[in-house]
C-alpha cells in the first residue's frame, strides 16, 4: 500500500467517523442504525485513550442483552440531550450557542457564525432540519463534508485545494467544535444513564482531539490560519508520511 493510499484511507476513515458521530447526535438510534452498529468493527487500540474508552463503552453496551433496546436508547437520548427542565442545566444541550452564551441560550452569536461558514462553503440546511445550525450534529457533518471534499481534491491531485480544505477543517475544529464541545462532554458524563451515550460523549471528545493532532501533523504546527500559500503542496506531501505511520 502506498503512502497516497494510506492518506486516502485515513481521509475516508475520518469521513466515516464524522458521519457516524453526526448521526448518533442527530436523532435517536433506529433499527437500521442499531443493526449496523451490531455488525460494526469497533477499534480497540487506536492510541487515543478516550477514543478507545468511548468505543469500549458503546461496544459493552451493545454486547449486553437488552430488551426493547431502541426504546431504552430513545429514552436516554431525551434524557441526555433534551432533558425535562427549563433552567438551561437539565441536559447536555447539543448547541454551541448554549455553551458560549452567558445565559445559555440557543440561537446566539455562535449560530450566526457557523451559518456564515456553512454558506461560504456553499452548504444550506435541509428544510426538514428545524433546529439551530450550531447543533453538534451539523458541525460534525460539516467536518465530514469538508473531509469528503478534501479526499476528492486529493484523488484529483489538487493538493493545494486539499491543503486549503484540511486547513479549513482544522480552523473550524479549533474555533468551534473544540471551543465548546469539552463542556458538553462534561455534561454527557452526568445526564445519560446508558453506557451508549456516555461512551458517545467520551468517544467524541477523544476523536476531536486526535483529529486536531492529525490535522496539525498534516498541515504542520505553524500552518498559516489564512489561505494556503505556495508551499502548501510541499507541506502536505511532507506530512503524509507522519499520517501514514500514525494512522487512525
Amino acid at each position: 500500500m502506498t503512502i497516497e493510499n494510506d492518506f486516502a484511507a485515513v481521509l475516508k476513515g475520518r469521513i466515516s467517523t464524522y458521519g457516524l458521530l453526526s448521526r448518533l447526535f442527530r436523532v435517536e438510534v433506529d433499527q437500521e442504525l442499531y443493526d449496523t452498529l451490531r455488525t460494526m468493527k469497533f477499534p480497540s487500540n487506536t492510541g487515543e485513550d478516550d477514543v478507545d474508552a468511548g468505543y469500549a463503552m458503546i461496544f459493552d453496551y451493545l454486547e449486553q442483552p437488552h430488551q426493547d433496546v431502541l426504546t431504552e436508547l430513545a429514552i436516554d437520548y431525551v434524557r441526555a440531550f433534551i432533558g425535562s427542565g427549563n433552567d438551561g442545566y437539565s441536559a447536555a444541550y447539543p448547541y454551541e450557542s448554549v455553551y458560549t452564551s452567558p445565559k445559555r441560550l440557543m440561537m446566539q452569536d455562535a449560530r450566526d457564525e457557523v451559518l456564515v461558514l456553512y454558506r461560504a462553503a456553499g452548504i444550506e440546511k435541509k428544510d426538514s432540519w428545524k433546529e439551530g445550525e450550531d447543533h453538534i450534529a451539523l458541525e460534525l457533518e460539516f467536518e465530514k463534508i469538508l473531509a469528503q471534499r478534501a479526499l476528492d481534491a486529493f484523488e484529483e491531485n489538487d493538493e493545494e485545494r486539499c491543503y486549503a480544505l484540511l486547513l479549513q477543517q482544522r480552523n473550524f475544529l479549533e474555533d468551534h467544535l473544540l471551543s465548546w464541545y469539552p463542556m458538553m462532554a462534561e455534561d454527557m458524563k452526568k445526564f445519560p444513564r446508558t453506557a451508549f451515550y456516555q461512551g458517545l460523549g467520551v468517544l467524541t471528545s477523544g476523536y476531536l482531539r486526535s483529529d486536531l493532532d492529525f490535522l496539525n501533523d498534516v498541515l504542520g504546527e505553524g500552518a498559516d490560519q489564512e489561505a494556503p500559500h505556495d508551499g502548501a503542496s510541499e507541506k502536505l506531501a511532507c506530512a503524509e508520511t507522519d499520517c501514514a505511520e500514525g494512522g487512525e
Partner: protein
Amino acid sequence: MADVEVFEIDDDFDPLEDVGFDGDSQDDDVRPDTDYQIPIPDADKSVVPEKRELEPNERIARLLKGMPGQGPRLLHAIDLAREEVDASELAAALDSAFPREVGVYGSSQVVRLLEEAGALSVRVERVDLEQGESLDGCSETNIACVCEGEAVETEAKDACGKTTEQIDVCADASCADGADVSESGPAYRVPAPEAVRWYKATPEGLAVLEARGGMSAVRAALLEEPRYLALFKRILEMTSAEGGASMKELDAAVNTDPLCAEPRRFCGYFLGKLERLGAVRFEGSWVAAPLGREALASDLFTE
C-alpha cells in the same frame, strides 16, 4: 417627639457584642469552626428504620397494587411463562392476548417489570443465529474479535476448525483476551450475536397467579358482594355475546336495576371490578375474557 425626650438612646449599643460578631471583619464568609450544634427536639424518638430488601412476593404485590389497571396483563404474562419462553415470543403472545392495549407500558416493559419484581426469572443465552448453536462458554467474555484485514477477507480456518465467519462471533484461541489481536496497528471488536432472554415464572410469581388470577380469585371477589351476583352475571352474559357489548348497552341494562338504587351504584363499578379481575376487557367494545366465560359456565351464579 415626647418619646424621644423620655428615652435615652444608646448609640453605642451593639446587639452582637455578646456573640463576638464583628460586622466590619473582612472575613465575613469565614465562620469559626465550632462543635456546637442546635439540638434537635426529640431526636431520640426520630428513628429511621433500617432499609429492608423486599421479598419477591412483596415486590410482586407492590407492583400489582401500583398498576391496578394492568393487573390482568401482568398475571397473564406470568401465566404465559409457566414453561420457559424466550422474550420475543412472550412479548408477542402478550400483545396477541391484549391487542388493544393503550397503556404506556409495552409488553417488553411489562415483562421487565415482572422480572425486576421477581415474578419471572431470566436466563440469558447467546446463540449463533446462523449456526443455531449456543456459544455459551466459548470465551469468558464472549467478546468477538477479528484481526484487521485478515479475518474478514480470508476463509482460512482457525485452530478450532472454524471458518473466519465464525470467528466473527466467537473469540478463538488467537484472540487470547478477547480483545487486541494485533501487536502493531489497531485491533477491532465486533459485538457478539444478540443474546436471547428466556423467561420462566418463579414459584413466587406462580403463587401470586394462583391467588389472584384464577377462578378462585374471581369467585372470592364476587362473593364479597353476593347481592350483586345477578348484575355481574348480566354483564358477563352481555359481554360474552358476539361482538361484546357497548358501554351504552351495559349502562342501560344495569343502571336502572333496583339493586343499584341504594347504595347508588353504576355499571362502571361492576364492570371495573370484573376488569380488574381479568374477567372482561375492552377491545373496541367490552368482551368477556376466557376467565369471565369460565366464571359464567361455573356454578358461581347458580349457588
